[in-house]
């Protein structure tokens, strides 16, 4: 090339071998960000997209206008759900390493961004999950064994063996199906919310994607349709800094926070400390109330960190410093809620230890229950001929013929 290239290439703060560096993450003090009325106009609260809503401070105290004032019971439930999510993740990861399941995706360090919203929303609200929001299932009380059965593609798998692990859904629990195709759920959630509004119902929708996924077309479709029709929906972008090997700068995070994308469409954007359970709860509650009152959509950017590998197929030490998670300035969501509760006097180290043990046992039992439905290779097996069901509502002639053909093979 004749001349010097001058294309800007986003640069992550640190690569393997470098010192982790999160100086680029702009922080606000806990309690520092104002909380507008839910009926305020989007243009009068643009600061929310730039600042960082935080409730729990460095001394573990909760403060400021966004303090959701949850009672002890709710705090304990939240902590328990987050912890259970982590324990579940760890066990499934181990099971994948042992070859019991083919694949897994952990949400370690990001538990608050699903648990807190799921608690702040109403049971009738429809959730459109990403593959890293297993916490939604747990917070809504899903039987752990059901999730495990999906990962095992066994006889109790709600997907009948058709989907890779973690692609859960729960119709009765109002949780939509996880798609392998990024961001597709975002505008679908908007459509769901539009239908609720058309029917005059009060339910709202909420959806989750990663920050990397915000580059997809469907992000724009979601914002446009949500803005045009003022759909009652809460759109969550989980900015965990990484999308497989590319840091958030490759989705445009170098220039403006993802919450600001909302403002471009006249949608309120809120940037929240995703590792602060109370803050996430509060902003979700605010956005949900706004939506339910007819105020339309809100875009929430959850600032967090993907502490685990992308998936069991990934090795992050190839592209980021090994100890980056430790340097993450917003800490760990479980630790932070726990410390807060201890400081508030509603929790103790001892209770915590006991809870961990209890949850591990619960998880182990659930695993045993799940195994009783078989694995892909042992125990009871799904009927392979069901692979022809549900392509259409009724099996068409050519699929019946193909099923017969498969049947004749196995005979």
């Amino acid at each position: 090339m004749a001349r010097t290239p001058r294309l800007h290439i986003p640069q992550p703060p640190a690569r393997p071998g470098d010192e982790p560096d999160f100086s680029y993450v702009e922080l606000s003090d806990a309690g520092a960000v104002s909380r507008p009325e839910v009926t305020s106009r989007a243009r009068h609260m643009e600061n929310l997209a730039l600042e960082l809503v935080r409730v729990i401070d460095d001394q573990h105290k909760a403060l400021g206008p966004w303090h959701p004032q949850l009672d002890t019971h709710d705090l304990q439930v939240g902590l328990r759900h987050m912890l259970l999510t982590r324990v579940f993740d760890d066990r499934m990861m181990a099971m994948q390493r042992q070859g019991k399941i083919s694949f897994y995706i952990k949400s370690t360090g990001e538990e608050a961004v699903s648990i807190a919203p799921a608690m702040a929303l109403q049971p009738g609200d429809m959730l459109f999950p990403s593959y890293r929001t297993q916490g939604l299932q747990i917070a809504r009380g899903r039987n752990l064994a059901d999730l495990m059965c999906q990962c095992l593609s066994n006889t109790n798998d709600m997907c009948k063996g058709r989907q890779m692990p973690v692609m859960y859904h729960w119709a009765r629990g109002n949780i939509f199906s996880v798609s392998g195709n990024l961001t597709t759920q975002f505008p679908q959630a908007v459509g769901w919310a539009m239908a609720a509004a058309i029917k005059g119902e009060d339910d709202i929708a909420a959806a989750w994607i990663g920050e990397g996924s915000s580059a997809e077309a469907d992000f724009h479709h979601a914002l446009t349709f949500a803005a045009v029709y003022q759909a009652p929906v809460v759109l969550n972008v989980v900015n965990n800094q990484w999308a497989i090997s590319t840091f958030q700068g490759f989705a445009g995070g170098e220039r403006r926070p993802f919450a600001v994308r909302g403002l471009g469409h006249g949608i309120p954007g809120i940037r929240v400390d995703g590792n602060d359970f109370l803050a996430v709860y509060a902003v979700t509650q605010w956005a949900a109330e706004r939506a339910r009152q007819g105020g339309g959509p809100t875009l929430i950017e959850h600032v967090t960190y993907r502490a685990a590998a992308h998936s069991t197929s990934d090795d992050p030490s190839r592209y980021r410093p090994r100890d980056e998670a430790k340097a993450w300035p917003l800490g760990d969501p479980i630790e932070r809620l726990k410390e807060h509760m201890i400081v508030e006097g509603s929790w103790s180290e001892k209770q915590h230890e006991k809870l961990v043990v209890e949850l591990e046992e619960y998880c182990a039992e659930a695993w045993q229950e799940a195994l009783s439905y078989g694995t892909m290779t042992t125990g009871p097996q799904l009927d392979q001929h069901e692979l022809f069901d549900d392509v259409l509502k009724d099996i068409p002639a050519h699929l019946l013929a193909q099923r017969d053909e498969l049947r004749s093979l196995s005979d």
Partner: protein
Amino acid sequence: MARMNMIQAINSAMDIMLERDTSVIIIGQDVGYFGGVFRCTEGLQRKYGEHRVLDAPIAEGGIIASAIGMGVNGLRPVAEIQFADYIYPGCDQIISELARLRYRTAGDFFAPVTIRTPCGGGIRGGQTHSQSPEGIFTHVCGLKILMPSNPFDAKGLLISAIEDDDPVIFFEPKRIYNGPFDGDPNKPAVPWTNHPKGEVPEDYYTVPIGRAEIVQPGEDVTILCYGTMVHVAQAAAELTEVDAEIIDIRTMSPLDVDTITTSVEKTGRCVITHEATRFSGFGAELAATIQEECFYHLVAPILRVTGWDTPYPHAFEWEYFPGQQRISLALEKVLEET
């Protein structure tokens, strides 16, 4: 019975379904106040209100996606894509989501979306207003693919599509919106008025999905066609004075294989015609299936008469269009063999 053209028949289908089922809604570009660029939704917003008949942003992907979300939330959306040429921005939502939702959730979720879209050439629309992309979607399992050839079927099939719990792509051959077209652009335009299939009940009725129709029985050769080509095939058969059995496929997927094979077993000869490009087009599936099912009955190779494997040109659309002459030659050719 009323006389309707295809636009009126399609409008009537939606009108009836909006009336019968409050979960039916219409969404698409310019479909609301304006009534659609081809006027298929004329008057519907006025009648059923802005919450049932929605103008949409110009984003086909967003239209399909929001229709899926609405479908999951109990509505029965009919989404219009203004031209089939503009369906591609919606491909991911159609293929990865709409077609797969029921399967991947083992039936727990589904979205009963009908996608209506005008297709086909012959209106000097050039390469971006003339395409027939049905072949792409017939390869996608989990979808039902329809194309009517006349007002009666259009209404009955569209009602079936809207009532169907599976996703349907309903292709509307725009060249015959106003009248049957036999492939000769120099003849004066003919309205649907005198065509038997221009007689359309004003009330609810259905034409079943998944059934081809024998438009004209015959002994010597089977012609498989759909949409505009049904009329061109009829004209070609008449021109050549061939005793052709003409089958209007109507539903490309799932395909009515029986009707087709029964016919070819009888005639031993088959010509397939569609406007879409030939290579890997839907005609290939028809030929592949027939040669497999009717091998011992075939006395001549199955021929395909289709659009050339080029984009649809503006200037030479009649040189491009698989007209009477090309079909006639194919008929003569298959009949030569003994």
